[in-house]
């Protein structure tokens, strides 16, 4: 295909991506270097019968004017990145020097909004992803062994947790674990503790969010593994059996190697998707005990005074985080590509 034709075919799609994905990133970078204007203050001397005093008032009109003239705010360099709500260098060094031991330091660290969100986001990503892979493979092996007529309906039901809107799926779960919902009430009676609430304790909230994450994503890895299982050649399996391999050895040495590229694929997708976790936190209203990077951006953007600079700085840090996560996979793809090219 000549370059010209290629260009005309790809240009609509490429324009959309450049305008609405690449430019916003530039816009995020710019915004992250600015903060909102401070209110314009006017001092005047008001004199009464008992003498004069200095009065400082907010000039509402001038403030509004300044904000319309320069919506971006004022340039602040890297302040947004280093302030208390983000990387919080000052607070960390203070906490480091004031803490007697590591646990005290970590306590202080996790009280800072950015690190609190980062801790949950990373825990969520790195707990959910392996669980999803193992559970998905187990379900796929189980479904593969079912009689033919049962496979279709099983796959239908299995798809539901993944296909349903994340906000809705997590809401449904949230209502069930409510102290008065079915699971919440059952757990209370199981432990005989009417005050036990899955929402009140941070550890339990983290656990429920992770359980939701596994429930939501397991179908994806199940489907991918199930499709992969159909491509495992029966000849090889038979040969292994004749050579005396038992069932476990057949799975370990024949099936699993066939699944290896699929594991890479699922890991890549899961890392991307779990790192952006947002909806469950909104549904669970869990901000007191668990927040995520996406959630703090969302909160900055939807609060009454929108903090564009702060949201942009968190966004940049999130993008850097995604890049670090994906770098090994991207590097691997690039190496494979250049190997085939030569």
């Amino acid at each position: 295909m000549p370059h010209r034709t290629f260009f005309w075919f790809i240009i609509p799609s490429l324009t959309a991506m450049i305008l609405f994905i690449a430019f916003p990133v530039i816009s995020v970078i710019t915004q992250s270097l600015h903060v909102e204007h401070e209110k314009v203050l006017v001092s005047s001397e008001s004199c009464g019968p008992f003498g004069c005093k200095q009065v400082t008032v907010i000039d509402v009109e001038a403030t509004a004017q300044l904000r319309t003239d320069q919506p971006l705010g004022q340039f602040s360099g890297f302040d947004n990145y280093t302030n208390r709500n983000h990387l919080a260098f000052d607070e960390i060094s203070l906490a480091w020097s004031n803490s007697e031991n590591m646990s005290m330091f970590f306590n202080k660290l996790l009280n800072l909004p950015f690190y609190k969100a980062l801790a949950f986001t990373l825990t969520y990503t790195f707990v959910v992803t392996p669980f999803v892979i193992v559970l998905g493979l187990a379900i796929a092996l189980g479904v593969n062994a079912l009689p033919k007529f049962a496979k279709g309906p099983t796959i239908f039901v299995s798809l539901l947790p993944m296909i349903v809107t994340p906000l809705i799926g997590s809401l449904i779960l949230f209502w069930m674990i409510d102290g008065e919902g079915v699971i919440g009430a059952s757990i209370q009676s199981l432990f005989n503790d009417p005050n036990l609430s899955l929402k009140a304790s941070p550890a339990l909230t983290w656990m429920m969010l992770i359980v939701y994450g596994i429930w939501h994503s397991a179908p994806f890895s199940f489907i991918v593994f199930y499709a992969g299982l159909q491509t495992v050649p029966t000849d090889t399996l038979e040969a292994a059996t004749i050579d005396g391999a038992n069932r476990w050895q057949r799975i370990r040495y024949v099936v699993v190697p066939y699944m290896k590229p699929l594991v890479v694929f699922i890991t890549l997708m899961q890392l991307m998707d779990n790192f952006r976790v947002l909806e469950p936190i909104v549904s669970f209203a869990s901000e007191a005990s668990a927040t995520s990077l996406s959630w703090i951006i969302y909160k900055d953007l939807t609060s009454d005074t929108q903090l564009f600079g702060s949201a942009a700085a968190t966004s940049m840090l999130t993008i850097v985080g995604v890049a670090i996560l994906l770098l090994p996979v991207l590097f691997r793809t690039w190496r494979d590509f250049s190997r085939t090219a030569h």
Partner: protein
Amino acid sequence: MSNPAQRRSTSLAIISTGFVVLWIMVAASPFLWTLWGSFKVQGDFFSKADWTNALYGVRTMIETGDFFTTNGYYGAWVEHGFGESVINTAIVVVSTVIISLTLGTLGGYALARSGFKYSFWILMLALVFRAMPHITLVSGYLLPFFEWNVWGYLPTSIIVLVAINQPFTLWMLHSFFLNIPKDLDESAMVDGCTRFQAFRHVIIPVMWPGVITTGLFSFLLAYNDFAVTASLLSQDNQTMIPKIASFLGTTQVEGNVMFAVAAVVSAMIPLFILVMFFQRQIVSGLTTGAVKG
């Protein structure tokens, strides 16, 4: 079974079937529970006394005199205008699917047929774009959109969703077009067609299975989106998902959680119907690119 590789012991078969049955229950019961509960009153769905009340509708019987009640649906659809957001969702989803498929087929076809090195880089770029959390992009949109006075309208969200959708659409259609033999359009070009005519007359008639599969996923992305629609649409133009999110704050105060439950069930139904009819396409779509490497 005669095939020794397929033979398994009975105990193993029981364990494996039992595990699948357990998974099916875990996967399906939350939906069934919520569907059933949406026809009850709050006192049953969130029962202080006994969770089986939700099954038998004890409070529902006392409060409404009937076993089932549609009060939740009435509240959501009539009192809170859930219908409007359903229409908005329909507009956003249908437009997003049509536009992203149009752009995606052209781009995906070009990427599949060109052997240039930069087409690989475009695909890699698309993968990087795919990895961006949507909310980070939203924080880049808001300020410019406010400045240009385009914030809050449906077309703005549609264009943004189309763009966010492109990386995935390109990847999927690219791998689909790779499976259509090159000879097909090249022989048309030997017969004197231009590249576009070959695309129009030879490729378009055979591309529908792939386009439908990709369209399903564009549909799901637009339908399930929360980050973009919740922050880019004004109150009047809200689609279903942000509407449900905004229900939460208000209805919990008024004690009408059942409105939200009814709205959630209403939003769930179209997805279930979709899976029912397109299960095969969804499964094949999830595995494109994975199984083939």
